């Protein structure tokens, strides 16, 4: 029993980190209808930038987020503007899939050139500290990461719900043509959306780098999980993404603790396939994908 509850706690904390990473993915899909295969690479890029700032200037990894996020925002907006915007055609969704994959490779290539391929971890003094609550261990960094995720997700929800930009995004998501008629500039909204999605990777990267070891090609593992999460959540649904991420964290941790770690990711993929069998649109996906 103790083991089960410890696994659930761990799964929720891990799920929180994944929710943060996947929220950017979901936002990008919602706005652009692009499956962003570069999201994992953006997270790893952020982890490296954060690590460099920490090692060279002693900036606390959590405080690197406000520095790294704008940089990734610009990068993301540039990717959309220069590489994805020109694609718009009937089969843009297939082509963009491959272009974002190329972006992921490009980022990986640059990271390999600059940082080499050895593993590294961001090691602030508190990286390995943990609290004991009622006999259960809770890693400080993991809890902080989970809180940061909640904060970023809350900010995203506010941004989409309360601002002019958010209204423009939602209008674009629901009906691009009507939105354009109403004066929403689709390309600009798309660039902002991709930029914003990339910026969330900054927060995710700092956290990821403290909790796990990473190297330039860690993004392949990330992307497989992120994709499963966003599909399970219903592509484009922010709330669905959070639920799916937490579900993935808990299912994997439970299977890992109670059955065997070799089946933990597998079990999640099976859940995903089973859900798709019943609901091809995912848990929370509307058939028309009306709301973000």
């Amino acid at each position, binding site marked *: 029993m*103790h*083991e089960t509850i*410890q*696994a659930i706690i*761990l799964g929720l904390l*891990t799920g929180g980190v994944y929710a943060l990473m996947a929220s950017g993915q979901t936002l990008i899909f919602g706005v652009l209808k692009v499956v962003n295969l570069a999201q994992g690479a953006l997270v790893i890029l952020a982890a490296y930038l954060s690590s460099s700032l920490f090692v060279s200037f002693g900036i606390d990894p959590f405080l690197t987020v406000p520095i790294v996020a704008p940089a990734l925002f610009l990068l993301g907006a540039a990717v959309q503007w220069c590489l994805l915007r020109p694609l718009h055609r009937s089969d843009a969704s297939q082509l963009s899939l491959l272009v974002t994959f190329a972006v992921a*490779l490009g980022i*990986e*290539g640059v990271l*390999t050139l600059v940082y*080499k*391929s*050895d*593993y*590294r*971890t961001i*090691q602030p003094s508190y*990286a*390995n*500290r*943990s609290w*004991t609550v009622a006999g259960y*261990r809770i*890693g400080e960094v993991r809890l902080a990461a989970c809180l940061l995720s909640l904060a970023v997700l809350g900010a995203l929800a506010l941004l989409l719900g309360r601002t002019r930009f958010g209204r423009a995004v939602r209008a674009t998501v629901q009906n691009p043509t009507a939105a354009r008629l109403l004066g929403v500039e689709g390309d600009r909204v798309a660039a902002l959306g991709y930029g914003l999605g990339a910026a969330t990777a900054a927060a995710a990267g700092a956290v990821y780098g403290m*909790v*796990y*070891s*990473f*190297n*330039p*090609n*860690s993004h*392949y*593992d*990330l*992307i*497989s*999980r992120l994709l499963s999460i966003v599909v399970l959540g219903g592509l484009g649904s922010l709330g669905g993404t959070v639920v799916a991420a937490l579900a993935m964290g808990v299912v994997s*941790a439970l299977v*890992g*603790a109670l059955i*065997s*770690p*070799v089946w*933990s*990711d597998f079990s999640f993929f099976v859940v995903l396939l089973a859900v798709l069998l019943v609901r091809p649109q995912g848990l929370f996906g509307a058939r028309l994908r009306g709301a973000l």
Partner: protein
Amino acid sequence: MSNRSRGRDTGRGTGRGTAGGTARGAGRTRVRAAAAALAAAGLALAGCSSSAAKPSASSGARPALTIGISLSLTGDFSDSGKSAQRGYQLWASTVNAAGGVLGRKVVLDIVDDTSSPTQVVTNYQNLITKNHVDLVFGPFSSLLTVPASQVAKRYGYAFLEPAGGGPAVFSQHLHNLFFVQPAPVVQQGDVFADYILSLPASQRPTTAAYPALDDPFASPIAAEVRTRLQAAGIRTVYQQIYPAEATDLSSVVTAMAAKKPDLVVAGTQSADAYALVKAMVQLKWAPKLLYLSNGANDPLNFPGNVGAGNVNGIFSSGDWFPTATTSGNSAFVAAYTAAYGGAATSIDSTSAEAYSCGQLVQEVAAKTGKVDNATLISTLHSGSWPTLEGDLSWNSDGAANASYVLVQWIGGKLLPVFPADRAQSAPVLGKLPWSG
């Protein structure tokens, strides 16, 4: 470190394995393999010189001795591939400075396999049938060793290989293959079992746990140690295989801690070794004794990834260390630091393994006056040959008959501690730093 860098080895292809250390390199890497090629294709980046010294003609009366080698120079394990490259090049420049092998200048033809088995076959085909190299050395990463060794065998080439020590390599029963490390990888943990069994009964642990990475170069090590310790009456209370993509080993450590083992013997590569220690530190649980087969034997990267304060007391084993008294080692260390800078402790054992292949060629040439493949194969199969890795002799399948050295982190340094004749410090039996 014997395998730490076997690059691709561990790499699990597809999206698996984040943490899995070396483990994950593979799949990923192949993507780059394709990438690589295409890239080159697309850009015709001729500029990116292959780092290989291409066989240049010239060089006096006697023809050069060309040696073809395929290494994983791009991709996940490129750092370790480069370590191998340094070892080979250091040997070549050393031997050339002394007049070459039998008066023939050594020229290395090093190509990149981008960690793909398809590419490694193409590379050895090219080296042997297109470039007509005189000799070949094995590829850097061990999963590629099997297909590469088949090509070498087909053309009757001796196959000195520093990286492929898994069971699959030896079960091919290739007479032309020589694994240039002290013993098959499976036996890497034997030295730790020897040490435990050498302890007086009062100090011996009574229970043990065996977590291991699902990898041909990790889990067999733990299994081998378990067999021996179990036979000696040390009870197994926990064993678990975890996959390379398990970034987070907290659940493994939680389950293991619940069984309260005295001893943990982990079959690890690199990232998973870090993850295991991190999880233990975070959960504030430590066994009395901790052995990690790889990862902890990497003085460059281990402290940075687990925290320098957490290393003391951890055991590992290795094939080579800078202060070894093996044949030619001090000269090797001096030459290495002179050529590449840095401290002796920053030398990767991979460089020493690669250098040792060269030593063997030199020794055979000195003894027989010949450097052809048939002579190499038949000569190496008899007698014992001194290298940086120790004195090696091989069985008919290419497995060497020496043993690894037990190392331990003591006072922030990685020191050989067992067996006594190779130890530079006595093993320290104390609490692990985070055990509170």
